[in-house]
């Protein structure tokens, strides 16, 4: 038998499959660099119109070209993002060889990986929102492919919606009850290009993209007392080393135990939902008295998670803003906290040493420095560039900057004066959401401040940026965004503010309910029935029961969804015939209603008196084109329904 040439796909089916593949690729596509996304979309459009297969050499050439583009977009580094981009690129090229049924099936199968890959990269509302139509279009494409011919769209849409609805019980059972892994079997491959978030570096002279990143970084809810807003410093990585241009972390900090703290004043308990950053650093309210559940505190009091935060994490913490350090600085730590790059910023160093020579201690120096800032410095996020002696330029000529400049300059100044100082990064402030009673901190709320070592008290927080006089705040991020918005909406914050709050609250609930679900919470799921920590077998059992229930619901709906949609009178008549059949008078298929009624009446005279007239009316309505008003039809249906065959007397 010769190899049969498979018949080509018809145009409509091909386009349905391609549309589904395109929709599946979209959540991933929007995460790519825009020019790459456009290039891939163009390739896809070209394939859409190429009804005939291209020569193999051309296809190879195109594949190589697109592969090169993908690699170039990620600077020839291989990471998870590169792989995901390569996957979506292959998916966009696959339509070039989609011409038979089999091709279409493999296209549809592989496309499902695209939303999956998108979720590995991002779990935000946009990705989720784009994945839903992808699934819907995939369902339509499967259906179209299995029918192999044009079908009316509206019933198809209805069937698709019903199918998705019917899949929900099983989906939920699987989602909540399918046993989760408490520890991953393997780690998530890293991205080649880093993401937003607090970094390992701070370069005062560089523009920070995070400053305009409006996406949420974390949501915090206080359990019990809420600290004043001015105390809400969420502590992240500590930057210890300065090379004249950038502040970087001390890599050894993780190996040392956390310093001892003595709580003072009030303590606050809180719960944080931390958006994925791909890094291991979490934030904790300054100063943390303990590590979050899945993390540990390093010697710089930064909470470091056990593994990179690839998914939303939830943790609780206890902090005491006024706690004091009870330990001492080791000589090594002191040396580190005093180190400055040699030969840089001579004027700053000279000034610091001059003030120090005047006998000022750390507190006095700080007060004097902050007074100077308050008097002469202005805050702006569009800081002018500075030269090689960045601190000198900032302190003595530009006098314009934002938190990076202020914290860096203060730290350099204090170190020059012989006071151990370090830079702390984190988030400050935030936006209170009235609906959910939580604080939302965005990436643009990232901040940098300092800590100075004061003998007897330990590290003490100093935020030089906060010293800027309100009049001198020229240009904040909010101003910038307000200006951008003014062009579009005309300062409608009053209207959109509450809407935004409500939207973010919904997002938080979604995070809480879905994104933050894990093995730990699954184990607690059976708490309502008295199982505190569910074992694996209990979960399997629960999953079995849940899936069984879901299946039963689905089956029930499937069996009952084909309701009789015919006219009520017709339905009433059929019900009547069924009743009569049960009573022993089955209606023959060919028997007209009146003949049937006559036959039943003859066999059962008691019934006939009532049955015959009602059958006559039904027959007239159905066959003799007697028009009845709505009420008359309803009445007829009622009479038909009410008819019961009198039980035969046992004579």
């Amino acid at each position, binding site marked *: 038998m010769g190899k049969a040439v498979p018949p080509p796909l018809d145009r409509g089916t091909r386009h349905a499959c391609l549309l589904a593949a395109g929709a599946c690729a979209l959540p991933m596509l929007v995460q790519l660099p825009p020019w790459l996304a456009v290039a891939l979309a163009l390739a896809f459009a070209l394939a859409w119109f190429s009804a005939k297969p291209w020569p193999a050499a051309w296809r190879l050439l195109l594949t190589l070209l697109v592969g090169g583009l993908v690699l170039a977009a990620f600077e020839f580094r291989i990471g998870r993002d590169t792989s995901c981009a390569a996957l979506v690129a292959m998916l966009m090229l696959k339509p070039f060889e989609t011409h038979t049924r089999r091709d279409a099936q493999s296209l549809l199968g592989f496309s499902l990986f695209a939303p999956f890959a998108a*979720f590995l990269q991002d779990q935000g509302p946009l990705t989720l929102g784009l994945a839903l139509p992808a699934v819907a279009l995939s*369902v339509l494409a499967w259906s179209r492919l299995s029918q192999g011919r044009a079908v009316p769209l509206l019933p198809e849409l209805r069937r698709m919606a019903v199918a998705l609805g019917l899949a929900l019980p099983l989906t939920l059972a699987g*989602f909540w009850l399918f046993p989760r892994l408490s520890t991953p079997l393997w780690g998530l491959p890293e991205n080649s290009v880093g993401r937003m978030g607090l970094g390992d570096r701070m370069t005062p002279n560089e523009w920070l993209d995070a400053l305009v990143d409006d996406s949420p970084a974390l949501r915090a809810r206080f359990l019990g007392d809420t600290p004043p807003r001015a105390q809400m410093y969420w502590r992240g990585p500590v930057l210890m080393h300065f090379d004249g241009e950038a502040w970087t972390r001390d890599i050894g900090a993780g190996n040392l135990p956390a310093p001892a703290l003595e709580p003072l004043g009030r303590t606050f308990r809180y719960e944080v939902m931390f958006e994925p950053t791909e890094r291991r650093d979490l934030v904790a309210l300054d100063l943390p008295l303990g590590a979050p559940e899945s993390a540990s505190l390093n010697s710089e009091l930064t909470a470091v998670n056990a593994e990179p935060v690839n998914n939303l994490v939830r943790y609780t913490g206890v902090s005491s803003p006024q706690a004091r350090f009870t330990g001492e600085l080791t000589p090594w730590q002191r040396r580190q906290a005093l180190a400055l790059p040699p030969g840089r910023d001579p004027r700053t160093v000279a000034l610091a040493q001059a003030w120090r020579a005047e006998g000022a201690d750390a507190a006095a120096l700080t007060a004097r420095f902050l007074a100077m800032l308050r008097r002469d410095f202005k805050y702006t996020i569009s800081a002018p560039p500075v030269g090689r002696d960045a601190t000198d330029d900032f302190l003595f000529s530009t006098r314009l900057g934002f938190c990076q400049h202020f914290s860096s300059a203060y730290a350099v100044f204090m170190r020059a004066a012989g006071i151990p100082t370090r830079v702390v990064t984190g988030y400050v402030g935030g936006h209170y959401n009235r609906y959910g009673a939580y604080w939302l901190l965005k990436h643009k709320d990232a901040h940098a401040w300092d800590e100075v070592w004061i003998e007897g008290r330990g590290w003490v927080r100093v935020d030089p940026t906060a010293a800027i006089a309100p009049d001198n705040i020229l240009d904040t991020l909010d101003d910038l965004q307000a200006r951008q918005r003014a062009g579009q909406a005309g300062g409608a914050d009053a209207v959109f503010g509450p809407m935004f709050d409500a939207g973010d609250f919904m997002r938080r609930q979604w995070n809480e309910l879905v994104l933050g*679900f894990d093995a730990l919470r699954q184990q607690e799921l059976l708490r309502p029935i008295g199982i505190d920590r569910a074992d694996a077998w209990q979960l399997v059992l629960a999953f079995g029961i849940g899936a069984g229930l879901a299946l039963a619901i689905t089956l029930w709906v499937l069996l009952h969804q084909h309701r009789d949609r015919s006219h009520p009178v017709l339905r009433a008549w059929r019900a009547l015939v069924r009743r009569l059949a049960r009573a022993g008078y089955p209606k023959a298929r060919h028997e007209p209603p009146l003949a049937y009624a006559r036959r039943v009446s003859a066999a059962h005279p008691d019934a006939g008196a009532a049955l015959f007239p009602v059958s006559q009316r039904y027959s007239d309505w159905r066959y003799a084109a007697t028009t009845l008003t709505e009420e008359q039809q309803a009445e007829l249906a009622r009479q038909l329904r009410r008819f019961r065959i009198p039980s035969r007397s046992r004579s």
Partner: protein
Amino acid sequence: MAVARDGVERFGDAAARFAFVRPKRPEPLPVQIGRRRIYVLPTGFGLFLGAMLATMLVGGLNYNNNPALLLVFLLAGLANNSLVQAHLLLSGIRLRSLHADPVFAGEPLPLKLRFDAAGSRDRPGLELLCEGEHAEFSLPAGEEPEVVLAIPTHRRGWLVPGRMRLSTLRPYGFARAWSWLRPDIALLVYPAPELGAPPLPASVGDGDSPRSRAHGEQPHHLRDYRAGDMPRQIAWKASARADKLLVREYESAVARDLLLDWHALPELAHEPRIRRLARWVLEAERSGSRYGLRLPGLELPGGRGPEHRHACLRALALLPEAGAGRG
């Protein structure tokens, strides 16, 4: 059109041999497809998709990626429901009747099957497969479509159609649901008439009476049209007057019937002889003369018309195989 079968489908078809596969023996019409005789297996596409979902499930569990898991379980739910839907599509269908007009061996035999179904569900996308031939049809609620499936014939005699497979790939092509039909029925296949056979033998016997020709003579009477009558026999004018089709019946004045005698052809082997006689039956019927058929152990007296022709061809079709009946 032959459709390439994938491995799972071949497995399902091969498994029909096993004794536990229902129906276990041929069954009388009507055949009701109940839920216990419906089999569902994934197609190659379904297996492929299942592998994709399994991969995504493991990945989603490992990374505890909740949206990915939602996606996986949603798709798995859809796929699972599609199996149930495929099952429900077949469940409740009934094969009401099956018949076929006899054909000559070698010609395709058009099986005419009539299905109906209980309930108010539409049942689209059904496929019937028998002896390598397949037909696609759908069964809308309340209708009883007739499905014609031309199956090949090779030998004269009773043809017992093999298992028929009623299947569906709906709704998504992930799985094939099927049920075997084994209606207890045998269909007649006439022997293949000989090609290039010599002309009809002259009337055996005294030969003094001229063979009368049917056509051109005065019609003896008109009778109702019966299936198989030749169009040229129809009395169109009379039919128009009577409002039904009438056919001229010619009284043949033939004195003696043409006898087609098995024993007069000793030079031919068993099967060729049957084929020669089959050809002659057709020729004789076409010529309009009365003819009889003498076979070993069986004699059909002279007659004419479709029924007689059928009787003769049937007798020929059912002659025992060579060597079986000789003693």
